């Protein structure tokens, strides 16, 4: 029994409730959001430390023993994801203190952000598939509101597409859960893992696994289900874009990792092969889509999609090294992608636009920002010694060992094309002379605004470099996490084993 597992959910959830009560006291809301996300990061780190030392932790909610009650389970992957959610949340909260205008803050930005984090952490920690659906919905409803906060025309259009496709994904998820319950009569993931192996009609299990693949594939923005993402992620204020880019699609990826290592491993040759095709096509379409874009955040949005492909590639190859690489890639990607969005926000603050043609000359006027852009950008493209290089290196190595040469070729090609995109942004935004513009430039950054915009970006860039330089440690943690994922018996024993002992 480890009650501290509930803390990453309770802290943001309760803070969101208190934050709503403090509706008119903006200063208090702001401090509370900073405190809560900081506490979330700290509890995440403590949780990771405990799981690293003591193995998988389980908590039965309401002291109903699993599989009858809902269990919260923290294995290494879940703990890693909670740490990343806390880190992203903390960085974005600091950033939004100065980057958001009063209008957004007054309409409940902080409560919604905290609610979003609660949903994300809940999805990471739950050990019950219906509960996973509930946390997905908590996360979605918060993200719907965040996406259209402010109510500009483009936000409404993007929001409509985002809401529709995510609701369809939820309905498919719910359908799959219903059929799963009808087939085996349980919802606990550990119990499902045991009972699905005993089902006679394995063909039906495969059909169900495909329903889950579609539902989570929409949420993870995998090919061919990604169209909602580039239509919506560039519309809200940049702090919101950044937290979406860092966390939301990764919850879908996490769910795929969880479900296709723990529950649906009966027909790996079929399901994971399908995932592999999806991974390759996701990488290619994402990166080619980005090549056609000339707006800072649209380029980055398409790159989210292509990077999702790498994570899926790790899951699809399904060897210890490949799953390890997938986890490493998720860690790297969340930090880097959030950071790139935050940088795009500073560029807009300095030049008043996201369009590449209106930007320029930032290398001359803001050399610090240029360096802070180059670190995550080159990491995204996979330049050594930054974090992305090791992520790609492990995946390529795993692909070669598994003999999947086609996907390795695609992965390397997409790395090259990513570099092209990043160089395009570099040349247009930083290198070329600033274009003559009719409107006067916004006032320069100073004091507190400068500090709070640059601190999160610098911290994330530092983490990117640290993951690159200390790759051996991250590798060790990811290796242990992958070992836990690939041995479902550990998870099952942790969740169900205690009941038999008592």
């Amino acid at each position, binding site marked *: 029994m480890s009650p501290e597992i509930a803390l990453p959910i309770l802290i943001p959830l309760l803070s969101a409730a208190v934050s709503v009560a403090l509706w008119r006291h903006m200063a208090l809301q702001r401090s509370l959001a900073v405190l809560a996300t900081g506490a979330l990061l700290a509890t995440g780190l403590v949780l990771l430390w405990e799981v690293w030392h003591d193995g998988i932790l389980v908590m039965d909610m309401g002291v109903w023993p699993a599989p009858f009650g809902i269990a919260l389970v923290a294995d290494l992957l879940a703990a890693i994801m909670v740490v990343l959610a806390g880190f992203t949340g903390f960085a974005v909260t600091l950033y939004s203190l100065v980057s958001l205008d009063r209008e957004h803050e007054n309409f409940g930005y902080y409560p919604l952000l905290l609610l979003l984090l609660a949903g994300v952490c809940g999805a990471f920690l739950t050990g019950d598939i219906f509960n996973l659906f509930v946390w997905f919905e908590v996360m979605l409803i918060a993200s719907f509101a965040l996406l259209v906060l402010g109510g500009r025309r483009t936000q409404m259009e993007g929001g409509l597409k985002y809401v529709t496709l995510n609701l369809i994904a939820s*309905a498919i998820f719910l359908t799959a859960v219903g059929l799963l319950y009808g087939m085996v009569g349980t919802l606990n993931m550990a119990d499902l893992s045991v009972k699905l192996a005993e089902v006679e009609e394995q063909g039906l299990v495969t059909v169900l696994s495909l329903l889950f693949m579609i539902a989570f594939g929409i949420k993870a923005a995998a090919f061919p289900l990604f169209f909602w993402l*580039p239509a919506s992620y560039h519309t809200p204020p940049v702090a919101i874009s950044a937290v979406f880019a860092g966390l939301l699609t990764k919850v879908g990826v996490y769910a795929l990792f969880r479900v296709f290592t723990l529950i649906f491993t009966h027909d790996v040759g079929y399901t994971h092969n399908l995932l592999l095709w999806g991974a390759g096509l996701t990488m290619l379409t994402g990166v080619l889509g980005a090549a056609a874009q000339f707006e800072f955040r649209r380029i980055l949005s398409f790159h989210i999609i292509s990077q999702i492909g790498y994570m899926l590639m790790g899951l699809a190859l399904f060897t210890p090294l490949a799953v390890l690489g997938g986890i490493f890639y998720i860690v790297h990607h969340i930090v880097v992608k959030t950071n790139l969005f935050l940088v795009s926000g500073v560029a807009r603050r300095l030049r008043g636009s996201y369009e590449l043609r209106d930007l320029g000359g930032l290398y001359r006027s803001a050399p610090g920002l240029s360096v802070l852009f180059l670190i995550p950008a080159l990491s995204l493209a996979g330049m050594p010694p930054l974090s992305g290089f090791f992520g790609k290196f492990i995946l390529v190595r795993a692909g070669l060992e598994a003999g999947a040469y086609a996907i390795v070729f695609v992965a390397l090609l997409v790395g090259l094309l990513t570099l092209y995109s990043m160089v395009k942004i570099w040349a247009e935004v930083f290198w070329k002379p600033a274009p003559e513009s009719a409107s006067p430039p916004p006032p320069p950054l100073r004091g507190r605004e400068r500090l709070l915009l640059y601190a999160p970006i610098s911290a994330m860039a530092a983490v990117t470099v640290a993951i690159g330089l200390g790759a051996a440690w991250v590798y060790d943690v990811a290796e242990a996490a992958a070992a836990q994922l690939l041995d479902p018996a550990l998870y099952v024993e942790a969740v169900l084993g205690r009941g038999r002992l008592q």
Partner: protein
Amino acid sequence: MEPLLAFVIGGLYAAALFMMLRRSIVKLVIGLMLLSNAANLLIFTAAGLTRGVPPLVPEGLTRPDGLSADPLPQALVLTAIVISFGVLAFAVVLIHRAYVAVGTDDLRRLRDTDT
């Protein structure tokens, strides 16, 4: 009872997809409503329909006597209904605001954010 409900559910899914493929935003939302209702009904049916034996524990016993209906699917459906109610309420407000902001309910004209 199950075959009949199976047809009803299939009909609801079909109607939902048909509505979502129309061009009007209002019909799109109606399609989403039908879709969530179809999923709810599916959970209810897939878990098995048992008539006339409520899962009540008789006095003096600690578990229901003999066969009884499974109460869990109903709890699941209840949760799902509440969630879909909240989400759809949001969606209805959203389409109203989108209509005011964009000035059309034709999905074909909502192309500004597409790529």
